[in-house]
């Protein structure tokens, strides 16, 4: 199918973006286009103006300062995958990115687009939650800082207002003795996960001091399994942690996989990811 008619704007600065966003209801930002363009071509959405933010340099770049890694909204998945800074400071993201789609999509898709889209079965929102990230939104009135746990509100629903643009994400450095684990189950490599787990914790020797377990594909947004994490941290055994998932997750049936099976798979993933983290491999 062909996209319905729309107008196209190519702002070069944030100020120009704000001007465009004043246009009201039908204005949509275009980042990597890997989700938006298909939805236009399928006539699932019909914006009146597409605001292409690929040329706004303020949205680019990965940097570290003051114990925080800042990733610009227009950073491509491919840049995350190849950044030495990410590999050394945020290995969880480095582990997650290869699971996102395929190379051609990673070349275009952006972190800002992923977070703004808030597809509940995707990797980066879950990583943000596990890493306690802060999402920075801006509009003409100024910037807002939103904690990841307050940002994702439901399927394709975020705390962004219609005139907001997501400009960057900030990650506190995980610190000493931090370890992470990541795994997901997808039918084919690059597919959206049936269920996945991003885990970030602190463990010295044989002792956990903290752990965040974020499941994706297991509810209407990325979900923190806090009781399960506590069970692991306090050494109650993996069985107890797995049992605690029942209340934390709420996957839904889809044609390929039932909710019940997704719960089972979430328990399996939890066992595998924690085992890998504890064995240090």
């Amino acid at each position, binding site marked *: 199918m*062909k*996209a319905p*008619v729309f107008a196209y704007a190519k702002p070069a600065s944030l100020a120009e973006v704000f001007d465009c966003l004043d246009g009201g209801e039908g204005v949509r930002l275009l980042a990597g286009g890997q989700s938006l363009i298909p939805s236009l071509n399928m006539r699932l959405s019909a914006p009146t103006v597409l605001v292409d933010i690929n040329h706004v340099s303020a949205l680019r770049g990965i940097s570290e300062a003051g114990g925080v890694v800042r990733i610009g909204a227009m950073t491509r998945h491919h840049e995350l995958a190849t950044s030495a800074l990410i590999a050394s400071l945020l290995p969880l993201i480095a582990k997650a990115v290869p699971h996102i789609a395929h190379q051609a999509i990673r070349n275009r898709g952006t972190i800002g687009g992923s977070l703004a889209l808030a597809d509940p079965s995707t990797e980066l929102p879950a990583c943000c939650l596990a890493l306690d990230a802060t999402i920075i939104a801006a509009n003409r009135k100024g910037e807002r800082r939103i904690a990841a746990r307050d940002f994702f509100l439901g399927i394709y629903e975020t705390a962004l207002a219609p005139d907001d643009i997501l400009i960057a994400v900030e990650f506190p450095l995980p610190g000493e003795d931090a370890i992470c684990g990541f795994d997901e*189950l997808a*039918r*084919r490599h690059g597919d959206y996960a049936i269920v996945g787990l991003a885990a970030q914790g602190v463990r010295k020797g044989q002792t956990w001091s903290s752990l965040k377990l974020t499941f994706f594909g297991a509810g209407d947004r990325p979900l923190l399994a806090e009781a399960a994490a506590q069970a692991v941290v306090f050494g109650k055994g993996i069985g107890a942690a797995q049992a605690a998932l029942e209340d934390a997750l709420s996957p839904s049936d889809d*044609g390929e996989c039932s909710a019940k099976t997704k719960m089972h798979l979430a328990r*399996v993933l939890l066992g595998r990811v924690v085992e890998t983290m504890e064995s240090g491999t």
Partner: protein
Amino acid sequence: MSVIDQMKGLTFLDRPNSYIGRSVPRPNAKRLVQGRGTYVDDLRMPRLAHVAFLRSPYAHARIRGLATSAAKAAPGVIMVATGADIAKVCTPWVGVLTHFKGLKSAPQYAVAIERACWAGEAICAVVANSRAEAEDAIALIEADLEPLPVTVDMETALDPGTPIIHAELGDNLAFERTLDVGDVDGAFRDAAAVVENTFSVGRHTGVTLEPRSIIADWNEGEEKLTVYHSFQAPHMMQDIVCKHLGLPEASVRVVCKDVGGSFGIKVHIYPDEMATVALAKILKRPVKFIADRLESFVSDIHARDHRVKAKMAVSAEGEILAIEMDDLTGIGPYSVYPRTSAVEANQVVNLTGGPYKHQNYRARARVVFQNKVPMCQYRAVGHPIAVMVTEGLVDQAAAAIGMDPAEIRRRNVIRDDAHPSIAASGIKFEKLSHQQSLEKLLTMMDYDGLRKEQAELRAKGIYRGIGLAAFIEITNPSAAFYGVGGARISAQDGCTLRLNPQGGVIAAIGVTEQGQGTESVIAQVVATAVGVPMSDVRVVTGDTDATPYGGGTWACRAAGIGGEAAWQSGKALRANILEVAAVILQSTPDALDVREGKIVDKATGVERMTLAELGRVAYFRPDTLPADLKPEFVVTRHYVPKDYPFAFTNGMQASYLEVDTDTGFVKLLKHWCVEDCGTVLNPQLVDEQIRGGIVQGIGAALFEHCRYDSQGQMLNGSMADYLVPMSSEMPDMEVGHVVTPTASSELGAKGAGEAGTAGAPAAVINAINDALRPFNAHVSVQPARPEEILRALGKV
């Protein structure tokens, strides 16, 4: 081949410049990878209009009215046409053939008039200056549709109380076939073990890289309709367009340039394509329709959708005594025109148990209507179902009597020296090689070594499985396939060769190229037969004005039938060349040969003259030749197999895989196939066909599925949700050959395009069940999704 050559035991393979049996590069590959292919959508022409279709959102609905005035007034719109408008120039059709006794279907219109019978059926057409404008206008049509009760589940389609889709047909049964051979009841009574199962094979579809595409152009001045079509059978399309638009043959030309994949999808008559042709006739200008991916999922034919209950009786020694099976398949609301949707079930009946010696067989197949996308022939029609049923039961039987799966097959396959033979279902085999194929496969895969590895890993909690599957494949069909039932689909094919003055050869042939390498094979055969370098042969296909009349490419016939026509034609051209050369060189035809584009002394190979020199004399200086010598450098030969209805091929496949028993995920480790397609004209092309076919078979076994809800809505009609098999999940594949040429033709080539698809699903499913054996778990549903495997394991 001269008598002397034959006495020396030489064959065409020994000809000095033989390309046969060699993996030569495809002549069209460079052009295609350089992006210089010409697919329908690449064609540019003045006044081209674009058509898009409003499709029914309901699986069954009465069309009470279509308010089209807003659409008609929309920018760029040329015409809004309803079903009734189109029916004025294009008559409806009924997809039945007389050799399927009792097969019935209802008249089908290019655009539905009174009722839409599946979600996705076209109910209105909009022609505009661009596709986007046509789509904009479609959104403005107000369709007054009254949803009608739907019949979706094939299991209940025949129950009293289930809505009858076409009231005038009386019920939802399109076709039924039964067969009862030998003493089935006696065999079951006396068996040492009886195993049974219900196999289900889900619906899937072809997903060609290039979607269905057509441009039709009616030139009023010439009174000629030219149809550019992404299609497998141009002459069939020509005939059908003539019939339904009331045009004489001379007024219709069908051109199939490059075709980006077909798999049987592009060999059927599609309502939206016929509507496009009708619109071109009405508008007197070119009209283009390119199916987009979303509408492809609900308008390309779907395949399979079978539920088979089956059982097998075996003796204590592992002898298969009898098979009984009952197949039920749902084909959507119409039997597809003109090949019908009864062929697949018919083939399941014919092929089940086919590799084995048993002579007691009872079968029933029922084909029912339902409000889903029409189902019809797709690569390896019926084969994968028959092979799954047979091979699944064979493995169960082996387990029941404690015999190794390889050994039970060894004991039961029809012996290589027992041919010609007739299977229990009545199909005739000229010569097969099950025994050689099995032994070769077991050696290639190191069967015993794998069994050992499997046992060792099992002890460590790693569950691997080995699955075997014997198969037979229908190739080189004679008129028995369609012609005898009244379908005007050519069983014969012809090849016309022309020697040009510089020594080049043009080969025009009725079989077509859709990516398989048909052009390569024809060029190889022609070059070998005539005696010219392959680079001097240009192959022309896919044009009803330019090639001999032929069937096109489907059912594995291009190499076996088209290749033989090319071979015969090439030999005839060489004879004509030698006749003229002998006069010029004051020699005799027998003493000369054509090699590498030169006339040579046959005994010594010494060059006597080039073909270019011969061409120069014959074309430009015929005055120098004797008056009674008439060079005939254009020849045509035709071929159709006559002694057997089909040239059956055979083979064996094996899958090795690992099941993650916690997640139900399957990791494919390796796949093997040994097949016997007779003479291998081009080993690389055959291996590619086998591999591609295996991938599609694996798709069916594990991934591909057209999922529907109870209202007949397809739920996963997009590339994001419909899982085509992708390279990361595919195993390495090793292909081996046994060569048993068919004596029906001189070349001895049979088909190879469907073998992979025929056997792969059974090999994979058997391997999964082999891996699950320690848990006493079993899956018999395709696709075998992780959830099915977890369910079988009792984990969810």
